[in-house]
């Protein structure tokens, strides 16, 4: 009852004209930043943070949180329309979003993404409102062993459920992890895998360099090759009837929406994990529990709904440890935390008591941001679909230009742009031989989380690997991951036995 009273007070703050205006502006700006390959919520929040010193702290955080939300919605747009994930959080959305667009169902993918984002956002805000302090303390029980077990589960999902060539899938994961290890060894601080002593490798390989190379340049070359330069991108004729029919179909996909929302929220709470592993795991588990797992990767709307519900849910989840413990759950919340310190706010358990107006105003504004984000997103769908009507010979060079600026923007280094081109060419050639490339992108994102978690776990246990099996949370996760890893081998053996029985018969 007390929570509802606090929330109502929060709504009074959130619906002040200035704050409401900032929510609408923030969501719109975030939507476009998120839709731009190479830019994500981190860029938007970091760049616009100085502007917020003109308004009171509560309004400032409301504005930045709205950008964060909008960018999470926007990430799906370039994943669906261009096949390039706008940010790491939207990588999983590409797997089915792009095939849907190629089938002429881009509007369905975008509606699915928007509605799933709204659902994930709503569920997570409700959880945030009701269980903030309790959930934060549960998340604190997650140590390095649990984090590594989660990462292992994410990789195992690809091997066990990918349906691709097993050695090629494992190779793809490993090469992504090796690329994530390029740069500086975090523990000894010495340079590592600096190829041919090129100094550009010292700052590592940014995930976007690989992602844009694979999904931008590689995908374009592949499309031009496989369609002889004339892709038959089905034209979409948008109508109210068609939109309502898509909405009905999306509503029926309640399972991936719930999986994404709950898993995303919990993984989002974990410091250092965040929305990317959350969305990838949601995709994997949604595929695992689907009635049509073979349809995933070929244009299944559930494959858009699960990751999109998860990444929005995780973005709220990541705010939870930031407010309750002062620990940011994602890079964007780390910047928000910095902003809060500048505004003179002290995050932590006492914040809910000493600055309850701020906390509840922010919480209520998340509801508002979520509502406006879905409305603005759906209103813009015709604009996004207009892009698909362009002839491919116009769209392709524009995408190449976007790849160039998108590859340069994160690190502002031409070395990365050249690397992106090499990755693009390599991805095109490997794809012709059926090497799955999504696991490599996943691995380069999760590698910087997985390696420290593994090494710290082994340091703590003195080199004893059984620590991953003996802890109450890590143990079951590791066992499930190992089962998924051996699952394809079991299936191969069963197939062989079946065939030999048929031959005998």
């Amino acid at each position, binding site marked *: 009852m007390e929570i509802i009273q606090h929330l109502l007070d929060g709504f009074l703050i959130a619906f002040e004209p200035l704050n409401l205006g900032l929510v609408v502006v923030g969501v719109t700006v975030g939507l476009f*930043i998120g839709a*731009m390959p190479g*830019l994500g919520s981190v*860029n938007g929040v970091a*760049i616009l943070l100085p502007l917020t010193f003109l308004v009171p702290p509560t309004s400032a955080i409301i504005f930045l949180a709205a950008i964060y939300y909008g960018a999470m919605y926007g990430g799906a747009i370039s994943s669906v329309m261009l096949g390039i994930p706008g940010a790491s959080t939207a990588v999983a959305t590409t797997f089915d979003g792009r095939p849907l667009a190629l089938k002429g169902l881009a509007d369905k993918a975008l509606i699915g993404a928007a509605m799933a984002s709204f659902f994930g956002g709503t569920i997570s805000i409700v959880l945030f409102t009701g269980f903030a302090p309790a959930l934060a303390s549960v998340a604190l029980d997650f140590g390095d062993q649990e984090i590594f077990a989660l990462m292992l589960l994410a990789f195992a999902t690809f091997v066990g459920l990918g349906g691709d*060539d*097993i*050695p*090629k899938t*494992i*190779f793809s994961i*490993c*090469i992504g*992890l*090796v690329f994530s*290890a390029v740069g500086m*060894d975090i*523990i*000894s601080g*010495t340079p*590592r*895998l600096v*190829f041919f002593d090129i100094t550009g490798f010292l700052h590592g390989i940014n995930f976007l360099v690989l992602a844009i190379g694979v999904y931008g*340049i590689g995908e*374009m*070359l592949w499309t*031009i*090759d496989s369609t*002889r*330069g004339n892709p038959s991108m089905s034209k979409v004729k948008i109508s109210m009837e068609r939109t309502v029919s898509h909405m009905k179909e999306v509503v029926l996909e309640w399972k991936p929406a719930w999986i994404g929302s709950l898993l995303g929220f919990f993984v989002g709470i974990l410091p250092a994990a965040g929305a990317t592993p959350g969305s990838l795991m949601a995709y994997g588990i949604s595929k695992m529990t689907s009635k049509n797992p073979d349809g995933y990767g070929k244009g299944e709307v559930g494959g858009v709904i699960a990751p999109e519900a998860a990444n929005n849910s995780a973005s709220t989840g990541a705010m939870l440890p930031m407010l309750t413990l002062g620990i940011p759950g994602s890079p964007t919340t780390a910047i928000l935390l910095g902003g809060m310190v500048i505004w003179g706010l002290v995050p932590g358990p006492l914040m809910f008591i000493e600055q309850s107006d701020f906390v509840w105003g922010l919480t209520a504004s998340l509801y508002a941001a979520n509502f406006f984000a879905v409305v603005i997103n759906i209103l813009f769908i015709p604009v996004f679909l207009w892009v698909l009507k362009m*002839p491919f*010979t*116009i769209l*392709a*060079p*524009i995408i*190449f*230009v976007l790849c*160039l*600026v998108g590859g*340069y*923007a994160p690190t*502002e280094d*031409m070395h990365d742009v*050249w690397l992106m*081109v090499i990755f*693009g060419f390599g991805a*095109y*050639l*490997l794809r*012709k*031989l*059926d090497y799955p490339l999504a696991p490599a992108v996943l691995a380069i994102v999760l590698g910087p989380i997985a*390696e420290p978690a*593994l*090494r*710290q776990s*082994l*340091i703590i246990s003195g*080199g004893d690997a059984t620590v991953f099996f003996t802890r109450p949370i890590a143990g079951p996760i590791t066992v499930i991951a190992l089962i998924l890893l051996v699952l394809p081998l079991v299936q191969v053996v069963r197939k062989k036995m079946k065939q030999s029985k048929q031959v005998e018969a």
Partner: protein
Amino acid sequence: MRRAELVTAVVLAAFSIYLMWKSTELNIGWVEYEGPGGGAWPFWLAAVMLVCNIWTIVNWVRKATPQSRSVEQFMDAHAIRMFVLVGGSVVALVAMVHFIGVYGAVPVFLLFYLRVLGRHTWRLTVPVAVSAPVVIFFFFDVAMRIVLPKGYLEPLFYPLYDIFL
């Protein structure tokens, strides 16, 4: 396709061995009070990569995968021509950035691609080639404060910096 499958697996196996060797520049064993050495993680991953490539080669010998049985050409004449023209123009785009910056390279690239490869009219080509760098400038340099490289054209932008930055 069958030959390409084998050649790729052999090249990637060699790359895996190179990565294993490169990883040994750091300790790949156990370091007292530090745990696994800095090279251990990439070394063992590269070792797994090597095993995977050997596995692919074994599959090739047994003709166990579609690619190892395929008699199709890996790249036909059209694919090679496309790869040279499109890939070459992308390489040229990035190379030009070093000399005439993004705002010189992008219009040149778009003019070539739209007019030569796309065979579009000048009425469409010129507006797209001119408007793209303008939009990029206002979005990246002005709004996002991400200054894109200008190469030798930098002095031309000083007046714009004075106005917008």
